[in-house]
């Protein structure tokens, strides 16, 4: 008698916000009692309350049987409560649904009001079983005398068809008849259903085209017209003749209709239905674009939004039409609504071509630049303004931009990068401009895109030869600017760009007039602020730059240079000795490797006597004939060839795949088998890498992509291969034995982070005795060629610069593979890049001593190692013999 009504429950809930759980617990308890009683009225009230709670998230699944009870009540107002509860709480797995079949059948034959409620409820709760059992009733009901029942039956039938498609063959004819129903509402409902059905199965409904076309041209019901247009949109791809037939009425609708939703539907269907192709398509496309452009200028944000969306779809086929509205579209990137900005950005990125790229990127970039004086609003106010919805669009004009939001800035940055880099820089005409954009981006981004920018820089510089000189210049500035270094720890500092800067300066340091000036920047202690990966690249770059500079100095040697060189070497060794104890293994390893080289140079410099030409233990330089007696310390040429012998080139995607696996090499075999057998597998592994690189004929093509890794390898290999050089006199068995022992030792030491340190001093002492002999022998011949090579490089870059940029799109293929495997790498422009490269390697490999017979080069690593090899003429071949043998085994 005193039961809570629904209203009481809601009021109670609102009054007990703090104690909701407790209140609901009590309420549900009461409901449990009420629902079990015999009083139908009370039961329905309880179910209604439960329905309300279910909407709040409190499950009412337990009461589903009672819901069915209420559904079966003969009283309409109770029945409707039951059906409402059913639509709210039932799902496919509700078991009591099996009990409802007869109930539904009965209700479908009841009074019109009951039938309406039942049809509505059925459309929600229908399951495949129910659909199968009730479809006859529904199909019969399509001919019901009352139009509003017919209408509902048609729509409910759609749900039945979705759940139980077999019904389609029985329902189809009836459904088609309904297109000619006397009641326009029934026709509209039929069109709705057909539109949905045709979307999944267009070919089946092509036969309806004449009737639909008739409706299209005669009806004035915009709701239905939208659906008809949509329906034709899904049909027209399967019946090309439809397109021509539809063009006139649609053009007519577009030009005359007042309803914007219909207009949009027409335009949209034209775009996705392929109606803009063909002879008449062009004028239709022009009409569409002009309508959409009008939308963009509309005050209504929704229209702007969808117009941008639609234009994005039209751009691929009719770029020139959209381009007319470029300014309007770019202005939308300034809109204060972030979602509109995003769509505008989508569109802008789709519009990009060779002509407009620069202006578009410049525009987008300007959004990243912090706005000056005009909008010095507290960021809190800005963010607030972003989140509260302005009262009316017109009052929301004040110039606060969401440009400050990091997420948005990130999107902007990534957009710029993708716009420029898509299809391998297809749209970039001026790469110097692009490089400067990248550098600007790194400065203004203030979000975390450093690594993307880094990859772009390296990619561009690797592929576009002509831009290298300019890139080196910019990178030099970047490296010598301390701000980025200082801010490296801040989020969004983009310090990864320094990685690229160091790498580019190191790799192309030949372009620098005075590379030694860069060294202090690379060696300064603040560098340790950067992440270890970058420090590692700094070490490598410093080494390369020194090498290049030293080689340069040696060419025009004055005895006064000795002091400067000594100073620099001193600096380098001091710094590297610090880095050798770095906690990061990568840094440590590189520093240790380079440190050994520099120690050697240091020793050589100390031993150098200005008194030229005779150096003890130095065999005659007759081979080279260019410089009879070097007056400079031989070690000046120690490092440069290590990095400059071969040029880095981008690698074609299929390059690795087209390298033939040599006979007898099992790539799936363990490199380091888990148990004991460490030894025998090890040498083959090294060969694998060598062979692949060797085929590529250039040192470390891979460096472009993953330079660190490769360089690390190179260094490791370098260390390893030194051994056989020393043991030149050893029999092959001994070499193998040594290799075995060495491999074992390495395996043991691998886990010890300090093994480099313990290792380092010893070889230094040993090598100092043995290696110089080796070195000096090869020295004069080394000197000659490099004199030619260096100027040669510089002149090439001069001829290139400021003329058209050549992009190396496809990358490099292994030489052998190009000939033998043309089918497997079907890149059309493949020939071109290969050709374009051939001059350069030949220039660079003008170091005669390295010109070990060609075939031999191809089978082994063209690594820095060779420097060591080449010194002893005989060694080269001898050493390689075991190598090839290893491969075969």
């Amino acid at each position: 008698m005193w039961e809570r009504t629904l209203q009481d429950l809601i009021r109670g809930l609102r009054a007990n916000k703090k104690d909701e759980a407790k209140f609901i617990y009590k309420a549900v308890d009461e409901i449990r009692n009420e629902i079990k009683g015999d009083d139908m009225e009370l039961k329905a009230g309880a179910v209604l309350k439960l329905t309300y709670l279910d909407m709040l998230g409190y499950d009412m699944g337990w009461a589903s049987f009672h819901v069915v009870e209420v559904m079966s009540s003969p009283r309409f107002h109770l029945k409707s409560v039951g059906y409402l509860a059913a639509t709210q709480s039932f799902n496919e797995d509700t078991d009591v649904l099996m009990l409802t079949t007869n109930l539904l059948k009965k209700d479908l034959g009841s009074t019109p009001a009951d039938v309406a409620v039942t049809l509505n409820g059925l459309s929600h709760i229908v399951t495949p079983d129910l659909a199968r059992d009730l479809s006859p009733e529904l199909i019969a009901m399509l001919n019901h005398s009352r139009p509003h029942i017919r209408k509902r039956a048609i729509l409910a039938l759609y749900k039945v068809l979705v759940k139980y498609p077999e019904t389609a063959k029985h329902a189809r004819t009836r459904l088609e008849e309904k297109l000619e129903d006397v009641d326009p509402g029934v026709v509209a409902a039929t069109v709705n259903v057909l539109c949905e059905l045709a979307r999944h199965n267009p070919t089946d409904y092509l036969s309806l085209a004449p009737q639909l076309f008739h409706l299209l041209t005669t009806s004035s019901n915009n709701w239905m017209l939208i659906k008809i247009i949509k329906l034709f949109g899904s049909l027209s791809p399967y019946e090309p003749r439809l397109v021509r037939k539809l063009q006139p009425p649609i053009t007519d609708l577009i030009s005359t209709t007042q309803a914007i939703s219909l207009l949009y539907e027409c335009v949209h269907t034209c775009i996705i239905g392929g109606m803009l192709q063909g002879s008449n398509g062009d004028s239709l496309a022009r009409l569409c674009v002009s309508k959409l452009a009008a939308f963009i200028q509309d005050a209504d944000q929704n229209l702007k939004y969808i117009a941008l969306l639609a234009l994005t779809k039209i751009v691929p086929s009719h770029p020139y039409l959209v381009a007319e509205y470029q300014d309007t579209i770019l202005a939308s990137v300034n809109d204060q609504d972030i979602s509109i900005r995003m769509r505008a950005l989508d569109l802008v990125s789709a519009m990009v071509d060779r002509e407009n790229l620069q202006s578009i990127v410049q525009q987008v970039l300007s959004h990243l630049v912090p706005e000056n004086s005009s909008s010095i609003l507290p960021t809190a106010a800005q963010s607030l303004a972003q989140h509260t919805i302005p009262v009316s669009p017109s009052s929301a004009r004040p110039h606060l931009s969401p440009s400050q939001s990091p997420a948005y800035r990130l999107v902007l940055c990534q957009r710029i990068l993708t716009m420029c880099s898509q299809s391998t820089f297809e749209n970039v005409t001026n790469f110097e401009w692009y490089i400067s954009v990248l550098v600007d981006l790194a400065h203004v981004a203030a979000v975390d895109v450093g690594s993307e920018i880094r990859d772009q820089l390296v990619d561009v510089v690797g592929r576009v030869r002509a831009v290298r000189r300019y890139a080196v210049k910019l990178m030099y500035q970047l490296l010598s600017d301390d701000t980025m270094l200082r801010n490296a720890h801040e989020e969004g500092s983009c310090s990864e760009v320094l990685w690229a800067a160091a790498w580019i300066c190191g790799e192309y340091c030949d372009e620098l007039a005075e590379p030694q000036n860069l060294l202090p920047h690379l060696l300064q202690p603040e560098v340790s602020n950067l992440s270890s990966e970058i420090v590692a690249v700094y070490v490598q770059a410093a080494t390369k730059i020194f090498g290049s500079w030293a080689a340069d100095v040696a060419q025009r040697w004055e005895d006064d240079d000795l002091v400067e060189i000594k100073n620099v070497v001193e600096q380098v060794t001091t710094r590297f000795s610090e880095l050798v104890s770095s906690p990061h293994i990568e840094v440590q390893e590189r520093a240790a490797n380079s440190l050994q080289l520099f120690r050697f140079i240091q020793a050589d410099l100390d031993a150098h006597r200005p008194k030229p030409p005779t150096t003890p233990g130095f065999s005659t330089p007759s081979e080279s004939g260019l410089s009879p007696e070097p007056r400079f310390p031989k070690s000046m040429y120690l490092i440069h060839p290590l990095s400059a012998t071969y040029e880095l080139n981008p690698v074609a995607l299929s390059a690795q795949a087209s390298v033939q696996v040599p006979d007898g090499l099992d790539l799936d075999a363990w490199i380091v088998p888990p148990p004991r057998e460490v030894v025998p597998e090890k040498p083959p592994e090294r060969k694998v890498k060598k062979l692949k690189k060797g085929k590529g004929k250039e040192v470390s093509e891979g460096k472009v992509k993953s330079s660190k890794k490769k360089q690390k390898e190179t260094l490791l290999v370098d260390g390893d291969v030194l051994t056989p050089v020393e043991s030149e006199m050893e029999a092959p068995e001994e070499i193998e034995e040594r290799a075995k022992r060495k491999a074992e030792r390495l395996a043991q030491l691998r886990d010890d982070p300090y093994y480099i340190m313990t290792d380092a001093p010893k070889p230094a002492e040993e090598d100092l005795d043995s290696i110089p002999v080796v070195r000096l022998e090869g020295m004069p011949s080394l000197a000659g060629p490099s004199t030619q090579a260096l100027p040669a490089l510089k002149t090439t870059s001069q001829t290139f610069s400021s003329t058209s940029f050549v992009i190396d799109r496809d990358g490099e293929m292994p030489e052998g593979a190009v000939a033998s495997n043309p089918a497997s790498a079907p890149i059309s422009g493949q020939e071109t890049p290969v050709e374009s490269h051939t001059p350069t390697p030949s220039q660079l490999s003008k170091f005669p001593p390295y010109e070990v017979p060609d075939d031999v080069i191809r089978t082994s690593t063209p690594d820095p190692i060779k420097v060591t090899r080449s010194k002893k003429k005989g060694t080269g071949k001898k050493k390689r013999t075991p190598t090839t043998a290893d491969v075969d085994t």
Partner: protein
Amino acid sequence: MPSKAKSKIIQDACLLRLFSFTVQRANDTIGVPGSKVVYRQYASLFFVCEVGEEENELMTLEVIHRYVEVLDKFFGNVCELDLIFDFQKAYTILDELIVAGELAESNRRTVLTSAEATDIWERDEILRDALQDSFIS
């Protein structure tokens, strides 16, 4: 205040905004992939529709608007509380307007009349029951 003026005020006050999440974000918040969310705000009331990707956003907005118009007529200056306390009626009206996810009746007067008819029918029935009960007892 005449209802016409009221609805005019509502129309003015309502901020027409459409927000389409990217598919990914829709996944994070609501719904299934390949759908989009269209919403419209009327004063403090938000009407949110999740529709298929190929659906016409503007038409969805029109449907929402139609629904709100009928609600407004039915309740007389509809507000949040009407929908909370009489959610059942709000659903009845929605059922008149939309069946199986498709627009069933586009004429707002028809929707209103049948919704009112249903309402009267229910009240009548309740009244009849009550009278019967009192006479019998």
